[in-house]
């Protein structure tokens, strides 16, 4: 069933990581990214990987599920590894055919692979343990200071949440249109990739028209329910920091310090 697709790959659970405030999780994953990019120390990077695996373990999300996000970037990782191994300057280690493998190149390749792995695991852990709704709320709250420089923070968050709301509606509609066009003799299955792509135009055009119509309806409905932007608006559900957030951020900061120690020592 289309309705059963989990949006934003949320993995339902009740762990400490799930319960933590979305703002805390977003900030932590951003900090992790910064550290991973700043450090050049192999030990630090390995610690970061161990740390993110431990975090996945604490969230009770199956490790294989958390690493799923790595699949699409596998090619990128392989590509950078190969490039780094064979095309880096430095002390030659050994030579295969005409390509010289340098010691520095190998180290650089390992570092890049580790970096990307930590990056993807860290950020997908946030989306895996936070519902899209909480995620948008968290982003809105975090971006709030930008309102001072006239960034339409509320509007961006509202657009995100409306987009999420309409994903299942538009999916269902797409299926309906595909069936309707198939009944009129449209062929979606034969031909090469270009012909297949072209055969989707009769699906996309009505889908777009209907999406615009829906947008118009929704705008009218929102206006008649007194929507007038973010000013003076209250929220029923308030994000609240709890003890869990304190513990989680404490553990995280400790982890960060641990990661940075080898960087300073060597």
């Amino acid at each position, binding site marked *: 069933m289309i309705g059963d697709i989990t949006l934003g790959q949320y993995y339902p659970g009740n762990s400490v990581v799930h319960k933590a405030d979305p703002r805390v999780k977003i900030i932590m994953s951003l900090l992790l990214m910064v550290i991973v990019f700043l450090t050049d120390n192999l030990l630090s990077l390995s610690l970061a990987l161990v740390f993110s695996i431990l975090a996945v373990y604490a969230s009770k999300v199956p490790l294989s599920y958390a690493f799923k996000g790595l699949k699409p970037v596998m090619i990128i990782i392989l590509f950078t590894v190969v490039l780094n191994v064979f095309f880096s300057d430095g002390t030659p280690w050994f030579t295969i055919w005409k390509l010289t493998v340098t010691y520095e190149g190998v180290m650089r390749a390992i570092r890049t692979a580790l970096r990307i792995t930590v990056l993807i695991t860290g950020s997908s852990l946030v989306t895996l343990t936070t519902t899209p709704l909480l995620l948008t709320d968290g982003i809105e709250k975090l971006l709030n200071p930008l309102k001072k420089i006239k960034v339409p923070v509320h509007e961006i968050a509202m657009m995100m949440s409306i987009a999420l*709301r309409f994903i299942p509606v538009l999916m269902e509609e797409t299926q309906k249109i595909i069936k309707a066009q198939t009944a009129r003799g449209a062929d979606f299955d034969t031909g090469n990739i270009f012909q297949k792509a072209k055969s989707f135009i009769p699906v996309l055009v009505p889908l777009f028209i209907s999406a615009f119509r*829906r947008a118009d309806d*929704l705008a009218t*409905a929102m206006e008649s*329910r*007194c929507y007038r932007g973010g000013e*003076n608006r209250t929220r029923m559900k308030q994000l609240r920091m709890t003890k869990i957030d304190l513990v989680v951020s404490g553990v995280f900061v400790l982890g960060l310090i641990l990661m940075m120690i080898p960087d300073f020592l060597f």
Partner: protein
Amino acid sequence: MNNNNITMIQAKDVYFYYKALTEDSENVEAINGVNLQVKKGEFLVLLGRNGSGKSTLCRLFNALLKPKMGTVVVNGFDTLNEDNTWLIRKDVGMVFQNPDNQIVGNVVEEDVAFGPENLGVPPAEIRKRVDQSLKTVGMSEYAELAPHRLSGGQKQKVAIAGILAMEPECIILDEATSMLDPWGRKEVLDVLLELNKKEGITVIHVTHHMEEACLADRVAVVDDGRIIKEGSPAEIFSDVEGIKGMGLDVPQVTEVFYKLNQKGYRFPTDILTVEDALKVIKEQLAVKRIGN
């Protein structure tokens, strides 16, 4: 509950047209001089063909559109005055035709909270109102579900709850039952009747279903941007030919008795529901029995 004679909405000589999109096309006239008074606590049904101006009229009633001539006064506030717009929309809630296109929230209770959030109601109070409104429409157990998992009738009930949470005095339903199956229609109408009778909320219901019109206190027939007939359901539907002449239908039961009368029977002309019919037939049978 009946607050008779207190005016909820007063429309005076209202004219409205939609601006032409191009230079050489003409403006589309939608409303051509409507005078209508809606009383507080009333259940009013608007009937009319597609394109007769019903929807435009509804939108004039909650300041989504402003009259080009004449005035619409809602609860003492003139819709032409910009300052009144939000006061009016708070008092007059609107449920639209397509259940999917009016739900904003990703979760049922979030959507119900949308209206009071816009009004700046404090969080604890919103919580209270949301729970109460969902209870009133009988959707409490669905509070944490995603809207796309609900049926059409349930979605419309959520939409009604979303308006109730704003504590309105009047609800306008712009063909809100037209995309629902008979079961969903009944669900929505039951809620409306309860709100109208128990809470005294004014209801303006636009519909194509004559059976729904029979439930109203008053029916107004709209044609070509004018109100051409106004009265109780019985008064309106007793003129079977007049109604059919406007491209509308009368309730099935009414039509049956109309046809019987054409064949020479003498039944009353204000029979609208099966219950009415049963009563009349029983009376007639009793008369016959005595006659024998």
